[in-house]
């Protein structure tokens, strides 16, 4: 790494872990030197990645802040030079991510319940389902778009907001599965036993005792899933396609912020690229806000 020289200067807060009692032989000095350098490189890595984050945020704000005007929120996308906004894209994104969560979250919840609560009866199958769900969590999202294109867009004969929502919902499910299972496993056994002792059937114990106790964590998972899919572009390219006009019908092609950003960012018109940056700023701010809220909330619960 190029930073090898200047790292020793950074490594100030590195009190040597080894005791002084060893004396000052040459090998000890060498060991301490290596330790200093390694510590410095760790600092460097952390600082470097934080710099990337701040650089991204800085560029977004610098290029996008100028477009945060009223017009952007109330006008639909227009041909270059006519002062269009992002209204249809914003509303389209809200509709599609909303639908995606409405479709994906219940499925994810049910699967999460299955993974956490049915281990006693179908352990083998559960391991398989958990494995596949984890695979879906990191599967290339553009292939999800292709898949929905083949099974929804081709049979129906046209692109639609619903197809986009379905593609996104396939990304929602594994996130919700993961958090639901983890949160249900945290519910103490004594609560289940108490409910069962009172004569409640298993499904009521699960839905009204366990799920209720794990409510906050489960809601967190759904919010994180919402945050994740609201920035997804690739699955929407071949499903909801985008729409230059105002349209709120899930049966028609629908605009979305990420796809509009993608189309505008590469354009040769200055007002379009400016709008792309504004859209990027909006979407990033929204996603980071959800993430920060969720993490702060989680932190409070843990204490």
């Amino acid at each position: 790494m190029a930073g090898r020289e200047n790292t020793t200067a950074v490594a100030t807060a590195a009190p040597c872990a080894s005791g002084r009692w060893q004396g000052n032989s040459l090998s000890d000095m060498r060991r301490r030197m290596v330790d200093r350098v390694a510590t410095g490189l760790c600092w460097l890595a952390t600082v470097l990645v934080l710099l990337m984050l701040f650089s991204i945020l800085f560029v977004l704000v610098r290029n996008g802040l100028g477009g945060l005007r009223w017009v952007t929120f109330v006008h639909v996308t227009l041909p270059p030079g006519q002062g269009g906004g992002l209204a249809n894209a914003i509303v389209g994104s809200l509709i599609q991510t909303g639908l995606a969560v409405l479709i994906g979250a219940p499925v994810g919840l049910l699967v999460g319940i299955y993974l956490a609560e049915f281990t006693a009866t179908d352990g083998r199958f559960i391991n398989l389902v958990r494995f596949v769900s984890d695979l879906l969590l990191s599967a290339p999202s553009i292939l999800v778009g292709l898949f929905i294109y083949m099974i929804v867009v081709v049979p129906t004969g046209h692109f639609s907001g619903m197809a986009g929502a379905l593609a996104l919902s396939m990304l929602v499910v594994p996130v919700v599965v993961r958090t639901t299972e983890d949160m249900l496993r945290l519910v103490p056994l004594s609560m289940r036993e108490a409910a069962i002792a009172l004569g409640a059937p298993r499904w009521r114990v699960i839905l009204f005792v366990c799920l209720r106790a794990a409510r906050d964590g489960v809601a967190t998972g759904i919010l994180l899933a919402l945050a994740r899919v609201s920035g997804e572009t690739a699955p929407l390219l071949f499903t909801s396609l985008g729409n230059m006009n105002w349209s709120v019908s899930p049966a028609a092609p629908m605009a979305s912020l990420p796809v509009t950003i993608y189309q505008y960012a590469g354009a040769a018109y200055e007002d379009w690229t400016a709008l792309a940056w504004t859209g990027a700023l909006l979407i990033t701010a929204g996603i980071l806000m959800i993430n920060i809220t969720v993490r702060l909330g989680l932190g409070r619960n843990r204490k």
Partner: protein
Amino acid sequence: MDRSATSPSALTGVVRGNGDAVFATIVRCAAALILLGLGGMVAVMAWGARGAFATFGPAFIVDKAWNPVTQHFGAAAPVFGTLVTALLAVALAVPLAFGIAVWLTEIASARIAGVIGTLIQLLAAVPSIIFGMWGFAVLVPFMAHYVEPFAGHTLGRVPGIGPLFRGAPYGTGFLTGGMILAVMITPFISAVMRDVFLSMPAVLKESAYGLGMTRWEVVRRIILPWSRTSVVGGIMLGLGRALGETMAITFVIGNANHIGWSLFSPGNTIASLIALEFPESAMGSLKFSSLMAAGFLLMLISLGTLVCSRLLLRTRAAGR
């Protein structure tokens, strides 16, 4: 769902049995849906790709041509680009992620580590298209004006590795793509590493410190051997993410069907090829089928990587 049974359930033993059976069926169906989702993806890809594989045979994978005019398609260039950018990304991201994980667990105080750890995880939440725009606006000019000319004049003259760093400084290309991907996957890898490091029994570290080891020696000889399997699993997880990434790479890869030694030359990945060419290909055409075939290959590559990663991570979880 069977929510009608609101009466005190202790009185209705029959309903109770039914309710449980119905509920179990519902959740099992939902679980089957997950399997159907992944199985369906693989099957649909394979089905869409049948035309290309029937026409070109297995040679499709190693064929360098991608020519819509002569209707001759091969996936070698995008497969090459996918692997090169993803491996570059991992090579760049692993030291960064490792450094961060060590910093968070061993160097920083718990309070500060909490804040910085959250900030780093925020980077993982930034959508990939934003990375693409940032790469195009910041990283590409930086590479074109400073890094690539400089590297070309210095590293480019070193025998052996020289060809890697020669070429016109476009700014876009394999190296830039790999760098963007590296920034994207670093938070994922470091999160896995941090969790493993934290899950290590403290007494192991304490006894090593007690014997007079330096911090680096503890990391190198105690923590790393103990957590090796999971660390490799985390790296594979990052690799899996990098392989399938679309939007970030589309902005900076340069989109040229090209195989070569130079890391500065524009290239292509399977995902960006699909993103760019799929809208222009007619359903049922050979190009359409070839794109599906490329998608199928991507599916196999990334699923293979992810399966390895999960198996490695699971071994550790089970052994704990």
